[in-house]
């Protein structure tokens, strides 16, 4: 097994092995479990960085293992997969640290961290999958490994959320599987490749291809939260904050969006998708989702629910960008895979900090909290401004490329949608920022357990604070240094060049 074949497996193993080890560990071995968790996360990040270096210099990492005749299990690195793998490796490290602090003193941590690692293993698998069947395998594994995390608290509300979550995602998974099986029936193999593989089929299969596309997108759209398949998302936010953070930023939601990008670019090929007339309707659904999510977010008082509807809206930027024909729109959509992740995870970390430290769950209770928790609210403010699209934050770069890409493609209505969404984002984020910083507090703060663990003059447990600050710093850095070579934008540009040169 050469390094180029072993590397993808090693990246997968860092979380898979961690998961198994944690399941076998006794509940009270907290120290060892934390060491395993963080060690696995750090090791994975190092491996991913090594792979990034290799991919940048033209190395092809591929592991191929025949499952059945004509059906291979393939793990492979390309630009798109590395973007997603890096994002999940980076955010997993911080979310692990956050989860350790968040779950301090609560029961069933062995179960939690075991499935937590499995969830990340599935995400890495989804990212590195080199063909559609491998993708489906990990896509289903993700569904099953996140369910125990959603219902972790075991409350009736959590169990209900778990039921809804499972019903939606298993249903979606079935559709994806059906589409995949149909496609494998038409084609000898469905390896992901630039420019797609579906265009090789004769014109008589085009109707079937359109039907398969609908199946695949409907199935992936469940996880990506496309309206009307998004309903599970605001319900599932009863999960613990690190789970919501992971669900909304990298794992589940992003897996759906990533899958849609894969189908559009590497299965069908973007130009062939356009020729089949698939992009217009999908762009319409994405645009509707963007606006619908924002309007719904306006009316939510529960902070995490507001953030959940914001996710519904923001993830569709990725889909919308992917549907804008031309490299600029592609850049905007693909780079938002990363940008939405780092900004939204910051917001969920902050929401968790507010809940764990001061017991604040509602927007209407946040008056003056900026003075009590300045670091948390500074991180929140940065991420919220980024979501609105204020420079120099990451969200601005996304909006800019989506906007000029849409204008270049003649899709002027997309620019209008972007602007309406910006105004709506401002309308549901700025009141929070305003209340936190400018309003006087209403009553003395009721300090929770995390506040008691705060060392020295820190506002809360450092393990809750550091991840939020780090991801906020990424959100600023990804925008302020966007033109640098190794920024997410730089990587997305490489992908776009590849997608359109084929």
């Amino acid at each position, binding site marked *: 097994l050469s390094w180029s074949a072993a590397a993808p497996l090693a990246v997968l193993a860092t979380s898979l092995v961690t998961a198994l080890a944690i399941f076998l560990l006794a509940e009270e071995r907290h120290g060892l479990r934390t060491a395993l968790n963080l060690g696995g996360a750090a090791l994975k990040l190092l491996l991913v960085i090594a792979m990034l270096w290799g991919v940048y210099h033209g190395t092809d990492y591929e592991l191929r293992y025949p499952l059945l005749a004509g059906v291979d299990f393939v793990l492979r690195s390309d630009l798109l997969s590395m973007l997603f793998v890096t994002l999940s490796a980076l955010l997993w490290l911080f979310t692990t640290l956050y989860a350790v602090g968040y779950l301090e003193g609560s029961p069933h941590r062995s179960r939690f961290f075991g499935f937590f690692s499995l969830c990340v293993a599935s995400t890495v698998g989804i990212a590195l999958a080199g063909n559609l069947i491998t993708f489906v395998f990990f896509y289903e594994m993700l569904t099953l490994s996140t369910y125990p995390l959603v219902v972790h608290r075991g409350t009736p509300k959590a169990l209900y959320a778990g039921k809804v979550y499972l019903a939606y995602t298993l249903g979606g998974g079935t559709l994806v599987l059906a589409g995949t099986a149909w496609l494998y029936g038409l084609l000898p193999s469905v390896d992901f490749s630039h420019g797609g593989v579906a265009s090789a089929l004769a014109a008589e299969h085009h109707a079937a291809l359109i039907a398969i596309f609908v199946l695949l997108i409907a199935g992936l759209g469940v996880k990506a939260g496309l309206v*009307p398949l998004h*309903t599970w998302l605001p319900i599932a936010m009863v999960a613990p904050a690190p789970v919501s953070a992971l669900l909304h930023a990298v794992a589940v939601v992003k897996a759906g969006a990533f899958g849609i990008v894969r189908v559009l670019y590497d299965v069908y090929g973007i130009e062939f998708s356009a020729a089949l007339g698939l992009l217009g309707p999908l762009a319409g659904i994405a645009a509707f989702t963007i606006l*619908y999510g924002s*309007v*719904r*977010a*306006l*009316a939510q008082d529960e902070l995490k629910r507001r953030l959940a509807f914001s996710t519904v809206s923001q993830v569709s930027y990725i889909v919308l960008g992917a549907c804008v024909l031309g490299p*600029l729109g592609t850049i905007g959509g693909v780079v938002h895979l990363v940008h939405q992740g780092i900004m939204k995870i910051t917001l969920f970390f902050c929401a968790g900090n507010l809940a764990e430290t001061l017991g604040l769950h509602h927007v209407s209770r946040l008056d003056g909290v900026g003075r009590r928790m300045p670091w948390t609210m500074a991180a929140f403010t940065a991420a919220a*401004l980024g979501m609105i*699209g*204020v*420079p*120099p934050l990451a969200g*601005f*770069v996304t*909006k*800019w490329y989506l*906007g*000029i*890409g849409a*204008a*270049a493609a*003649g899709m*002027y209505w997309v*620019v*209008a949608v*972007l*602007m*309406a969404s*910006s*105004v709506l984002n*401002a*309308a549901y984020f*700025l009141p929070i920022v305003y209340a936190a910083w*400018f309003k006087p507090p209403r009553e003395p703060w009721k300090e929770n357990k995390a506040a008691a663990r705060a060392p020295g003059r820190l506002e809360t447990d450092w393990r809750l604070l550091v991840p939020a600050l780090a991801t906020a710093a990424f959100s600023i850095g990804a*925008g*302020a*240094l*966007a*033109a*640098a*070579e190794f920024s997410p934008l730089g990587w997305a540009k490489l992908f776009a060049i590849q997608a359109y040169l084929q």
Partner: protein
Amino acid sequence: MTPEMLVLPWALLGMRFGLDAVTQVFLGLTLVLWALAGVYAMGYLSADPRRRSFMLFFALTFSGNLGLVLARDVASFYLFFALMTFAAYGLVIHTREPAALRAGRVYIALAVLGEALLLAGLMLAASSAPTLEIADVRAGAAASPQRGAVVALLLAGFGVKAGALGVHMWLPLAHPVAPTPASAVLSGAMIKAGLLGWLHFLPLGESALPGWGIALAAAGLAAAFYAALAGVMQDDAKTVLAYSSISQMGIITVALGAGLAVPGAAAPAIAAAAFYALHHGLAKGALFLGVGIAPAVRQPARFAALLLPALALAGMPQSSGALAKYALKSSLSELAWAAPLLPFAAVGTTLLMARFLFLVQAGGAKHATRSRRALVAWLACVAASVALAWLPLRALELPAAVEPSWSDAWPILLGAALSVAVASAGGGLGRLRVPPGDVLVPLMAAATGSHRGAHALGARLGTVARRGFARLQARWREGVKRLRSACDAGEARLRAAGSAAALLVIAVVFLFLQ
């Protein structure tokens, strides 16, 4: 000009900073006004409990204003423009009084709307431009297949900052409630950022847009007269000054209209607009700063120091105002119908200034300072405004200085006479009042309704979605129940037929599998 630039290719979308003839003028205005206002603020706010918060937002807003003047690429320009916009909110609501909070709400709502519109305009223009450099984006605005939309979006988007008619409502609310040094920079320097945005990105000198040019000039004139009319019916000195700013920006807009209509007229129009901006910024800054100075022993001297910039604004011969108005008029050669109307705008300005001086002398501001620092800063600003008349600005290539003429003097005399007449006549005319923010009052009523509507819509959508979901769920449960009972019934029948039938079924299945 030297095309030297500071280039940071890794920052944002590739940042570039530099200066040209026009931005040099804006840089001078920005530096002088912000520095003097800063010194003034140290004295003015020395006893304010929220001094540190003020200084933070003051510094951030200043950074934004300075950065946008120096920016040479569209992304950096927008970055600093947004920084200035959002940081200035902290200045507007500094006192936290209800009026300030209301002004802040109006300000931020219009600002966010403006940012969205101008970002859309910039994106459309940039998509037709080879690079993000400002000159290229301006050419892109001209070349864009959606040129009309670009122009409209930019006019409205930057118009929010520049106090253009229709989106001007925040000025008369925000400028008076902000602490005086903040009002000075808001009205003197910050609204010029909107003008600079127009000068940078409108396709001036690139394409002939006679329709847009005439519309813009007409809108400018309308603003000049409308704001003068609304302004003289105010009771607060700073509100009068805010309306005067709207009126003055309207006058500058007329020159832009000429430049937009005929590409050849663009260069003199840009130069005139830049010089007018400098003149207005210094004079308006001096007037605002003067409002906050407590009436000291030497009342006549204070009045004189307020009168000088007021007369300059009205365009008194030998003042910077006369130079600015002459340059402006000269740039209107292609828009001949507008030029004769300008003196009447000067009459309006004179009325506004008379109203302002009357209000200052009669009551003064709510909060006035006796600080020496503030006094020095104010006098320095007055001196700068007066000295501008003799400052050679060769880079702008303005028309040569003018002899004092009757055409400059009569609007002032007419305005003064009108003011005296109205004041002494008493009666109903002098007591007419317009609420600050004028059209905002009916608009707010509508807006409150639509805001409630949006919330209701959000809630309604949720209910509809929930209900639909519940209905689906019920139907699903019903279906499952029916299926289950059907299966039960079937199985019961099978059982009734006895195990022989079951065996038969198994045998059939087995046969199929073979």
